[in-house]
């Protein structure tokens, strides 16, 4: 019995050490990710697409990058919630509407970047450069060339026609590009026709609702459905892997006076409370430079915004189609009404 307490005490010393260890870690945990020379990037663009570009930047400049990916909206919510304590320095998204929304909430810093007006057209950036577009993508119909003729569909609204029941694949209502697309349609065609369109595609798609564009393209290529709504570059990415897949993009609403294609932009902004503005600026300069644009946009088969960077020859040349004249910045205001429309129409 006399030995036992001594043994116990040494054990409790050990225990105390363990607790001490945990306390230390606990205190340091938030600090770990706040090392000096680094840039924290919140990205709504998938890690798979953004990470290689950021890695190149990191290798080139020695600025360490910490990446947090998530849905664009969720990240805006997070930056707003974190307020002045946010670790975020840079915000990158796939949807200009989200960037504009962040600007309206004063979450993004106006930036002065020399010569930007010669590189990025004003339609693709905020007037005060608090966000800057990096690449363009169009929302197209991908169709199976063995199943339909391109002249059967001339407007994007045509896919809501009941004759395509069971032949259409659509993305989930959660996708920001769907929301942006619907916003543009409602701005041009009005709420009533938009809601009819949404109900139409809901009925036509039935169970063919996919979380990923790639799955939609795949379903079209395999003939499960005749067509689908996707961002254009997924078609070319699929063709790069399956050269003989019977798929092609359909450019709609192209007659004079018609709506035109729905275009959206990915973009970047510097967070208001960032303490690393200089590094953030370097990242922006890298991404709008020719090599940066090539990596960020071209390699992903998007439309580079830098006019000197050539578009992939497989894509329809940018000058061959016209796009809907709805300013990207307006997407932010249209967002909430669009969400209500989508919810009301029963799209999930």
């Amino acid at each position, binding site marked *: 019995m006399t030995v036992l*307490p001594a043994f116990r005490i040494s054990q409790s010393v050990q225990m105390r050490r363990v607790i001490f260890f945990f306390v230390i870690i606990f205190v340091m945990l938030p600090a770990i990710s706040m090392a000096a020379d680094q840039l924290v990037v919140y990205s709504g663009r998938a*890690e798979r697409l953004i990470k290689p570009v950021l890695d190149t930047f990191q290798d080139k400049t020695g600025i360490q990058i910490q990446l947090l990916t998530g849905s664009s909206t969720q990240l805006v919510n997070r930056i707003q919630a974190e307020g002045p304590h946010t670790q975020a320095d840079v915000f990158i998204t796939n949807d200009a509407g989200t960037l504009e929304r962040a600007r309206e909430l004063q979450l993004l810093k106006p930036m002065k970047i020399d010569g930007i007006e010669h590189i990025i057209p004003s339609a693709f950036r905020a007037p005060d450069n608090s966000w800057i577009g990096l690449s363009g993508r169009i929302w197209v119909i991908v169709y199976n060339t063995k199943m339909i003729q391109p002249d059967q569909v001339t407007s994007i609204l045509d896919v809501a026609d009941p004759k395509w029941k069971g032949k259409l694949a659509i993305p989930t209502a959660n996708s920001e590009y769907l929301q942006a697309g619907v916003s543009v349609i409602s701005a041009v065609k009005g709420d009533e026709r938009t809601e009819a369109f949404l109900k139409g595609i809901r009925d036509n798609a039935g169970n063919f609702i996919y979380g990923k564009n790639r799955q939609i393209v795949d379903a079209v290529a395999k003939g499960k459905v005749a067509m689908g709504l996707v961002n254009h570059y997924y078609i070319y990415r699929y063709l790069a892997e399956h050269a003989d897949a019977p798929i092609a993009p359909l450019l709609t609403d192209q007659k004079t006076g018609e709506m035109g294609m729905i275009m959206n932009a990915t973009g970047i902004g510097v967070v208001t409370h960032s303490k690393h503005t200089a590094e953030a600026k370097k990242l922006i300069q890298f991404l709008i430079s020719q090599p940066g644009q090539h990596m960020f946009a071209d390699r992903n088969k998007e439309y580079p915004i830098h006019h000197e960077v050539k578009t992939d020859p497989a894509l329809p040349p940018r000058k061959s189609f016209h796009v809907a004249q709805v300013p990207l910045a307006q997407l932010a205001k249209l967002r909430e009404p669009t969400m209500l429309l989508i919810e009301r129409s029963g799209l999930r």
Partner: protein
Amino acid sequence: MTAISRRQAGFSPLPLFAFSIATILALPLLYVTYSAFSAKGEVWGRLWATRIPELLFNTITLAIGVGITTLVLGVALAWFVTRYEFPGKRIWEWALVLPLAIPSYVLAYIYTYLLETGGSLEQSWQWLIGSDAQIFSPYSYGGAWLVMTLNTFPYVYLLSRASLQNFNLSFEEAAHASGATRWQTIYRVSLPLIRPSLVAGLFLVTLYVVSDFGAVSLLRFQTFTYAIYQQMTGRYDYGAASILSLLLVLFAFLFLIAERWFRQQSRFFQTGGHIRTRAATPCGTLHALGITAFMSCIFAAAFGVPVLLLMQWTWDAWVDGNMASGFLSHIWNSTMLSGMAATIAVVIGTPLAYLACRKPTRFNLLYLQGAYTGYVLPGPVAALALLTLFTQHLPFLYGTAVILLLAYLVHFLPAGLQAMESAIQQVNPNIEEASRSLGRKALNTFRYVTFPLVRGGFTVAWILMFLQAMKELPATLLLRPVGFDTLAVRIWLEASEELYQLAAPPALLIVMISIPVALLLMKKNWQTP
């Protein structure tokens, strides 16, 4: 004795501590309720008109569907392993618990692969039926039902096995003697006798289905948890998310109450005499083959094939040099966060469990109940509550690990508390009183007398909470600090991009370390009262 109770009546910081812990743990629930009611009326109206009927329908039908199939599967499997003697029976008894080691989202991602168009399952199906045959899409009720069934039937199996094992043969013999046929005996005597454990299993499964996020999110099946997550990540305003959360909490709460009620209703007692359990019937070759084939199918679908696939992918990833670059740091993040959560949980759970066992006053029991609220707070709800709570009152902690740890605590303390409570209950208070009467202070008594005795139970509690935190998905996704991806988050991110290879190594790792814990569940006393 009087001297001791007088000393105990003096001021002790313990109840105060217990009170504050319970308050902190119950706060998220209160806050969700508050924010749901402070949401605008039009949001309520909108949700009733557009979302709620659908979500209720989906959630309830999924729970019912999974409930029925797990019941049939679980009871049938338990019946076979307790009533029949066949080669390999011991191994099967254990193997059937293993599916519990696979997190629902891992199983879901395996099945999105298996059931994909033109996938191996569809090809074999077409080979069998004809080239026009299509199997059901994993992104549907069918997919969610299949995955959840395969993931949860072991709970029913465990519970019914335990009650079948302790089944008194005399009742069945009495039925036989009174002229009942074999099926009549099963239907009118055996099944009613194991009913309490069936009900308990069913509720366990239902609660699991209702609060699961991982599987339904990957299968994109619209249930409450998934809808809440979508509202949180897709909308700028959390009003709708809080309303859906409140409904889900009420839903889970109803299940919990109903479960308690049923358990009270159906108590069976052994009345005198000793229990004679039934000797297992030896099987003929054909019979044994039939049973083995049935079990193999279930086991292969719920564990064998998934794990083999994970191994294959991990191997491929290893050979191709395609392992995620941060794999080691993800392991470290997961281990550290879960280790800390479990340790803190044991430390703060101790006074709660201790007070509730030793001084079951109304307040102390209330504190314990407060800590149990986590049971009815599914992951996305806990995340939402903490998120809004912190952003409004402690914004500087948002985006740090503190908030994530708190989410884990709220969520997993109930599971640990149960184990801790029963460990303390097994210690005879007389031993502690003896120590006190010999002059040890209360704290020392706990440290040198009680603690060594409950260490086993506490370790189990720690392991349970550690593992659950490790597998936790929704709260981690929403609250993780920058650069703090965990294994679970990586699996989910890669799986939702359909990068099966990349998702495999972390998934395999989680399954491997979960296996011992699943087996630990075999040893647990599953007796229902």
